[in-house]
């Protein structure tokens, strides 16, 4: 156990122009090997064009009990979402 390879979280950009998405985790001795392992483990079916790896214990996460304070305020700001606005069809794409 003392010598277990650290755990890495893997993020993959599936197509050009998309953002990276968390796809899973794996073990590797360092970041370079984590990228290589990610290529072998998570892109076996041509799923990716770019890989990010982050050591799992370097990820700072919000705690679930913050769920209310952290996210609810934005729920009421519906105007931030483009679908909030009715744009007349004649105006065209926007």
């Amino acid at each position, binding site marked *: 156990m003392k010598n277990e*390879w650290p755990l890495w979280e893997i993020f993959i950009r599936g197509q050009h122009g998309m953002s990276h998405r968390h796809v899973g985790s794996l073990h*590797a001795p360092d970041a370079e*090997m984590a990228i290589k392992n990610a290529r072998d483990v998570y892109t076996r079916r041509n799923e990716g064009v770019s890989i990010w790896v982050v050591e799992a214990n370097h990820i700072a996460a919000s705690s679930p009990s913050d769920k209310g304070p952290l996210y609810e305020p934005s729920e009421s700001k519906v105007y931030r979402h483009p679908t909030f606005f009715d744009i007349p069809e004649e105006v065209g794409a926007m």
Partner: protein
Amino acid sequence: MTREDAFFQFLLRMGDNTLILGHRVSEWCGHAPVLEEDIALANTALDLIGQTQMWLGLAGEVQGEGRTADDLAFLRDAWDFRNVLLCEVPNGDFGRTLMRQFLFDAWHSIQLGRLMKSSDERVAAIAEKASKEVAYHLERSADTVVGLGDGTEESHRRMQEALDYLWPYVGEMFQSDDVDAEMVKAGIAPDPASLREEYDVLVSRILGDATLIIPDSSFAHKGGRTGAMHTEHLGHLLTQMQWLQRVYPGAKW
């Protein structure tokens, strides 16, 4: 020897290398030191099997006797195999497997780079596809050789032992004969000897990073790529690989 004969022999050499090495690497599936390596080794083996289908497929076509890649893989005896001995030696421990992979990948990547400029466009096309796969094999095997060479005392010792065992099998990849001369004349493939300099530069750099010492000997086993004398190991490998096809001739699988 006609040009067609030589071309056929050359294609067998390419295809038998990937066939036999791919078979060896596939033996690791389910037994590797860690899951991530298990998956990575399987990817390497899969690439090599795919390349085999292309090289032996073309070999059958060039030979013109209606033989498929499967016929060539499963229905020839040991003396008709043209892979270098390096590919057929047993896996040994993980260190020896990865050292063998690195020593082969280094040659393979240089060879494919040259073949991409082959006068035969079918050869160039296969080389183009394979070279992308092999560039990654090389990166991975080189990294692993460096990591284990420069790892613990034990891993260093095992990697040096692997290199000492395998080094006498390196020279065969650079030996030239009539087949090669014919291929050079036709512009299909380079003279093997002409790859050596680039190979030595690459291999010395990586093995240096791995803190390993290249044995001070130019002795080279030979006989695989000509078929004159394989190791005892090849027969056992073929016994397994060809068993079903031999026992049930003509069956479709």
